[in-house]
């Protein structure tokens, strides 16, 4: 199956069901409710289900990152699953031909991951051991932009 912007998130949520709860709790903030049309009739009072505009791929990746980073703890985290997830991400990026996927992974996923590390006391060296070469390059490009040099520690 070819992974695209439209099915990558479903792929991760199906493969790693433990991500689902946190993902859904976060992605709700990026869903814009679609206003309901004004009713013609006073009698149309039936409750309708709320409809939402789907979040962008960037927002979905931010939510995916939120759910994955919840598993990354200095103690008591689920390092084995995290390792598998990062392996999958590496494979997707290594095979990816869509430049937009790589772009969004860098700015919306890896940048968020790096931004949140120190708040959670998660060592950068431990993260870099989980990343494959393509993922690591995206993180280093991001580091270069910010001039924060966390990965050189």
């Amino acid at each position: 199956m070819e992974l695209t912007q439209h099915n990558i998130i479903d792929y991760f949520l199906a493969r790693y069901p433990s991500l689902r709860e946190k993902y859904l709790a976060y992605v709700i903030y990026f869903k814009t409710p679609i206003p309901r049309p004004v009713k013609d009739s006073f009698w149309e009072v039936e409750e309708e289900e709320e409809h939402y505009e789907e979040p962008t791929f960037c927002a979905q990746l931010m939510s995916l990152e939120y759910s994955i980073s919840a598993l990354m703890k200095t103690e008591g985290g689920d390092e084995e699953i995290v390792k598998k997830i990062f392996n999958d991400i590496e494979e997707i990026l290594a095979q990816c031909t869509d430049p937009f996927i790589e772009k969004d992974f860098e700015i919306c996923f890896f940048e968020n991951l790096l931004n949140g590390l120190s708040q959670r006391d998660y060592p950068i060296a431990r993260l870099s051991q989980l990343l494959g070469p393509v993922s690591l390059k995206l993180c280093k490009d991001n580091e270069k932009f910010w001039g924060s040099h966390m990965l050189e520690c």
Partner: protein
Amino acid sequence: MEKPNVENPELASMLDKLYRPNARVGSGSTSDALRHERLTGEQVGGRNHMQKVSDSIKGLERWLEINKNIKATDISAAENVLKDLRNALQ
């Protein structure tokens, strides 16, 4: 603007994602990243922060809609970051 300190853990996590510690680009905020990109043309590997800023505005707006009963200082902090993001997008 500098990252504000907030008590609500979910808001704290949202704001953490918008700031790079020890950055040399502005205050390390995503808003400053976009301003820097617009000013200098420099981007992250040819990419910019426009989409992330736009999505983060949506995220914080919705968070404020849903979380009306939290501490006033947290609401004010979220509103200030939102203002900064909107300003960067203009």
